[in-house]
């Protein structure tokens, strides 16, 4: 595909930050944007997902740029969730689901033999549609659960990670005095931010979010949106959304899916103002879906 030659994978995450700080290309939104500072975090190549013999996602090639928000849009049932879950091997757990093709993270295929799905999921975290904190655990234990799974027991490290993650999930000020209380004592929006903090704690490179605001009220939604725009400074985000305005507000890139295929991928501005494909135009113009 056209973008393929211009991308680079950064070897060292620090270096990427430097690259990104230098770049300022949100203006034109066309492919002409300076090539060297677009850094790929992930990329799918010919990725298909089958449920039994039915193809839910059909040969998708898509880049995911580092420290940017990519929105996946499309009508219900078009395979957004299916595609998203193929990016951290969640389909390994679904009976009858099968993935073919490649999904590269920093240039390495996460489906390659020898790749441990457990480690893949630590690098590529996930936030779900409905907030799902562990209900029997405290706020503190929820946030630190991923680190404790990774074998970290030292109190000082956990304390620091919990504060860091909650701060970055914009929840610290609200809960710092009651870290020991139960996760269910939080509001829906707070619970979702808690889940984001839980995902952040293991310092993933990518976070996948499947309609993270669809079960929240407008206030909760606004807080998550604000959080996502802040978070992209340090983590790459791929987000499914049904809300066009949300995609426009917070994403840098947008991918439009239809019937399991990726119809169009581009800068969000371009997708919503000058879509190249007719289908995209109809969809973002509200003609179907």
């Amino acid at each position, binding site marked *: 595909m056209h973008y393929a030659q211009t991308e680079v994978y950064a070897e060292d995450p620090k270096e990427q930050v430097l690259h990104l700080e230098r770049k300022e290309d949100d203006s034109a939104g066309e492919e002409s944007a300076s090539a060297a500072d677009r850094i790929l975090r992930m990329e799918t190549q010919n990725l298909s997902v089958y449920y039994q013999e039915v193809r839910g996602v059909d040969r998708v090639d898509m880049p995911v740029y580092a420290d940017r928000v990519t929105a996946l849009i499309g009508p219900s049932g078009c395979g957004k969730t299916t595609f998203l879950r193929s990016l951290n091997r969640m389909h390994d757990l679904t009976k009858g689901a099968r993935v073919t093709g490649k999904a590269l993270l920093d240039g390495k295929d996460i489906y390659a033999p020898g790749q441990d799905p457990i480690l893949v999921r630590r690098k590529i975290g*996930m936030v779900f549609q409905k907030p799902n*904190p562990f209900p029997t655990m405290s706020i503190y234990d929820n946030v630190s659960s991923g680190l404790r799974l990774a074998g970290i027991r030292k109190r000082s490290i956990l304390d620091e990670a919990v504060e860091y993650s909650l701060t970055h999930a914009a929840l610290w000020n609200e809960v710092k005095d009651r870290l020991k209380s*139960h996760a269910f004592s939080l509001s829906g929006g707070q619970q979702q931010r808690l889940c984001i903090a839980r*995902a952040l704690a293991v310092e993933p490179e990518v976070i996948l979010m499947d309609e993270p605001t669809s079960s929240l009220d407008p206030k909760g939604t606004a807080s998550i949106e604000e959080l996502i725009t802040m978070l992209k400074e340090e983590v790459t985000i791929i987000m499914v959304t049904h809300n066009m305005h949300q995609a426009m507000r917070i994403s840098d890139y947008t991918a439009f899916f239809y019937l399991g295929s990726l119809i169009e991928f581009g800068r969000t501005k371009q997708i919503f103002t000058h879509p190249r494909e007719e289908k995209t135009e109809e969809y973002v113009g509200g003609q179907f879906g």
Partner: protein
Amino acid sequence: MNKGTRGYSRRRVSPIYRSWGDFIFSTILLMLGASIIFLAIAMAWVLWREGSPSIRRHGFFGFLMGSTWDPVGGVHGARPFITGTLITSFSSLLIAFIPAVSAAVISAEYAPSWLARIIDTLIDLLAAIPSVVIGIWGIFVFAPFMRDRIYLPLSFWAADHAPRLLPALGNPVSYNLTTAVIVLSFMIIPYITALTRDAIHLVPKDQREAAWALGATRWEVIRLAVLPYARGGIAAGAVLSLARAVGETMAVAMLIGNANNLPFRLFQPATTMPAVIVNEFREAVEQMHYASLMAVGLYLFIIAFIVNLAAASIQKRLSVGGRML
């Protein structure tokens, strides 16, 4: 919508149906429900009425604490039976709990579906065996085996090497406290397993996925997401199984040896409340003996009632959304 159904759905409902339907339905339900409660209360009242002569003579707590049971002499104390019931039921729960929960976890989480089906069927079958059949098996197979392979060798060993243990072991015979406890634990395993399995199946998918997405392994998903979420159901299952162990009569009466001399020793006969009732009711011609057996029944009723209440409250407190959260 086509006109045909609309015609029906717009039809006038008869006023009697409309105003009385709800009332009649709820009244019938209420009466059926109330009759069950009434039955339980009536049963407790009969037990009290029939048992009260003995309770009056010995006192509520005197009857409870007295350790002499002498129908001929007219002295009745239920302590041996209550002790036996508590020891057998709690020990069997202790023995059964971990294997039973493990079986449920294996069937619900690890086993491929064909194996899970086999495990589930076996467990259900175990639950369906009549307790008198288990008693027969215990008498002819299990008890002799235990005496020859465990009780006798252990007693000989203890006599040589650890004479201090001998008082706890007692004179080894086939039908004794240990035999009854082990068989009782076999009998409650299917209950704990089935209730645990149900509790595990109720854990929402998104809880498991939350753990998977953090990079949990299979066992870690169970530890982090499944068991904590299911703990209310598991604990309630354990307590309900305890209630079953408290009330289990036939197999225990057949295997425990039925001797009411305290203190009980591991390899010597003991007894329980249901066992004494089933063993003695035929001979209870004396008024006081009869009343005392009824009183034992009343105490058993109370214990079972308390255990069931405890199960309900534990489930409420431990389950997700409950007070402990």
